[in-house]
């Protein structure tokens, strides 16, 4: 089979497009990040060593890395599902934020339920509220033609205003000036992985890694099944590639747009389970800050495939955790360095995806020609 790619990378073998190109893009992003480190007068190699050690060097670090990765998996999957329907959901930020509201409402007001019921209820709350926040942009895109990119941006800001209002004026603990709710009851929290393992007799260092990591892995499997192995996923992808062909095939594009965005919003909403029910144990301001946008980087790097998203999430989780250690070791480099790397990854793996195509084409044809 002569597998060659089509589109802007036309003429290149598939292995180069799927394997080589992303690696080259990633390396470029890292190289430019290294330049930034040089610019502020630090040694890039030392930074790399601290990052790797900080992310994987000790048990606790690995726990933290996986904890952060959990957030990225949810928001990355959210972006990817919408992408398969040809939609750019950059509202993951707001959907995760409002998803947190769903989690908090369940954990605060349904805490008469036992643990076995409150967990699924909170999961439903996260998904439902996340989906609900995606609904209006989805509906407007599907039936009024308003561009989902713009409306989801607007909804991120509306969500921010809404949550501040709720936390300051409505949901904050009586008598407290902190814009946060009272803590969730003990049985309305997700167990930590180190606790579960301890119960099984395995001792690992304490970290915020909790049960929602397992849910994130399950979501990866669900998304894979949904997108490639169900009729619903087939319909969604048909619309993503060609709305006229979908219509011809008896598939209603507006309906698929709605479905894709709702699933996407639900996945983004689930991110709040990890942060709120897993670690913070209360609803607070800006807990989703940055993760929604980072989901774009994750989905792009992972090329919309759950396995790729999982790997990209691990990379970003490692960067987050390593970045935290980095700011301890080298106070002049803050955790914002990770944000820089993130931006560069989106730039090179996303917008400049085909930067190396001409060079690669040249290199490969020359080798074949010789």
């Amino acid at each position, binding site marked *: 089979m002569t597998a060659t790619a089509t589109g802007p990378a036309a003429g290149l073998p598939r292995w180069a497009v799927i394997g080589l190109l992303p690696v080259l893009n990633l390396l470029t992003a890292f190289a430019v990040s290294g330049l930034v480190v040089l610019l502020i007068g630090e040694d890039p190699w030392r930074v790399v060593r601290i990052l790797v050690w900080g992310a994987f060097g000790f048990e606790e670090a690995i726990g933290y890395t996986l904890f952060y990765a959990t957030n990225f998996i949810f928001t990355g999957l959210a972006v990817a599902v919408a992408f398969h329907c040809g939609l750019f959901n950059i509202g993951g930020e707001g959907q995760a934020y409002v998803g947190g509201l769903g989690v908090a409402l369940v954990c605060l007001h349904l805490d008469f339920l036992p643990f076995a019921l409150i967990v699924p209820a909170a999961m439903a709350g996260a998904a439902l509220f996340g989906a609900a926040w995606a609904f209006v942009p989805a509906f407007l895109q599907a039936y009024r033609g308003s561009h989902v990119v713009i409306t989801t941006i607007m909804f991120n800001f509306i969500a921010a205003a809404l949550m501040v209002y709720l936390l300051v004026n409505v949901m904050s603990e009586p008598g407290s000036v902190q814009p946060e709710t009272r803590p969730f009851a003990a049985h309305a929290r997700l167990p930590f992985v180190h606790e579960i393992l301890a119960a099984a007799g395995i001792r690992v260092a304490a970290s915020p890694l909790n049960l929602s990591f397992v849910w994130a892995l399950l979501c990866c499997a669900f998304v894979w099944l949904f997108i490639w192995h169900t009729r619903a996923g*087939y319909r969604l992808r*048909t619309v993503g590639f*060609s709305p006229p*062909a979908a*219509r*011809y*095939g*008896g598939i209603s594009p507006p309906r698929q747009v709605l479905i894709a965005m709702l699933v996407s919003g639900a996945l983004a909403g689930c991110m709040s389970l990890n942060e709120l029910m897993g670690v913070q144990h209360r609803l607070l301001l800006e807990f989703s800050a940055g993760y929604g946008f980072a989901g774009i980087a994750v989905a792009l790097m992972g090329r919309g495939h759950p396995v790729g998203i999982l790997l990209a999430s691990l990379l970003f989780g490692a960067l987050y955790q390593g970045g935290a250690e980095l700011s301890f070791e080298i106070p002049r480099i803050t955790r914002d360095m990770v944000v820089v790397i993130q931006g560069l990854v989106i730039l090179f793996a996303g917008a400049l995806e085909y930067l190396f195509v001409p060079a690669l084409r040249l290199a490969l044809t020359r080798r074949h020609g010789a």
Partner: protein
Amino acid sequence: MPRKVAADSARAALRDEMPGSVVPAVELRGVDKRFGRVHANRDVSLAVARGAIHGLVGENGAGKSTLMSILYGFYRADRGEIRVDGRPVAIEDSEDAIAAGIGMVHQHFMLVDTFSVVENMVLGAEGGALLASGMSRARRVLERLARDYALEVPPDARVGDLSVGVQQRVEILKALFRGAEILILDEPTGALTPQEAEHLFRILRRLKAQGKTIILITHKLREVMEVSDRVSVMREGAMVAHRDTARTSIPELAELMVGRRVLLRVEKGEARPGRNLLAVETLSVRDERGTTRVREVSFTVREGEIVGIAGVSGNGQSELLEALAGLRPAFAGHILLRGRPLGEGSGARRSEGLAHVPEDRRRMGLVLPFEVRESAILGYHDDPRYRSAGRLDWASVSRDTEEKMRAFDVRPPDPRRITASLSGGNQQKLVLAREMERDPSVLVVGQPTRGVDIGAIEFIHRRLVAMRDAGKAVLLVSAELDEIMGLCDRILVMFNGRIVGEVPAGAASERELGLLMAGAGARSRALRAP
């Protein structure tokens, strides 16, 4: 314009030097162009005399448009030379072409819909950093040209609001405003009404009278015979003949175009029509803008016959097809299958036994980035055969797709290739395989052989006839008159949204059909309608 004067006198000098030999206005020598595997132009040469209307004819995909796009700087030739007024010119982009006095009216107009007529005219020829002077100059030129060439257009109207015929005049004005001496028109009558086409030819004759050189790309031989002085014929990327129009005929040109004595004779026996299967009753269809495109159309298609719908494209055939397939709602009237109304939507139609091969396979019939097997179940993805335990059973889809690919000789028969990597003919056979292999009772086909190679065309025609002989009803819409005449048992002619005539295939002459397609028989009836 001192430069032009100099060129004129130089030309006059040349003419004096070489009595009898006139330097052509444009000359292409040995032009060669490939697009990947497609050899679009093979060593093509062409000379066009000054002040003449020169027809360039050939079938779809013969390389006419590519050749002219090279002349206009839209593509760059791999090899070859372009001469204007005898001098070699390097045309790297459209700007060079414009500077060499070449103007082009594209098949799909290159107008900015939101701009006014005058804005469209000055775009790219503003004559200074500020618009004011260029705009008023354009207005003056517009008035003059309108007088001289019957090119009336409202200068301040938004182009998007104008009719197709008027938009085309704006395109011509644009070219003339840039001082074009050589005007290329690519399939200019494709979307025009006969009246508009007549008006266009009047304009072209006046332009010629004023000394302009016109190249007319078309595949409509009647038009070339009517308006041109000389004709060049292209076939499969090569130039095959040049003729003076006065000394040639439609049959000769047709033979040159196709390269065979016999035009598309499809092997088929006598039709044995049975009961009425598909009945369309006073069907009217509107487009997105609310314009009525199909007007009270009624006809039937019986078992065991192929009914063709002929007509100049844009006369409502596409909308009729889409309405039959359930992609467009009927505004009024009924569509019945075996006497019963069909359900709404393409899914329902398909399950009731009406299959549809759409006119545009790349946009609608297939999903190009999909694997072949994914494209092969489009519209049939709900079929329980493709399901196991609630999931899509890709193994079964692959098996089924490979069978279909072999049955329809889709090469290579690999269900996991990307659809876009198949050639046009193989893509079309894939669509046909999908729609025909499920034993539908009615097949509605649009442009089945557009952009398809000769071998595939014959294959497709044989399958359509076989389907007829199996007692199915086939409705065929095609822009190729030859195809309609060769394949169909009855021919309906559509003009301006109506069916204006029905001709049994054996009795159809190209002339008669042509007259009907031009609306000659319809005008009186249209006037009587409310």
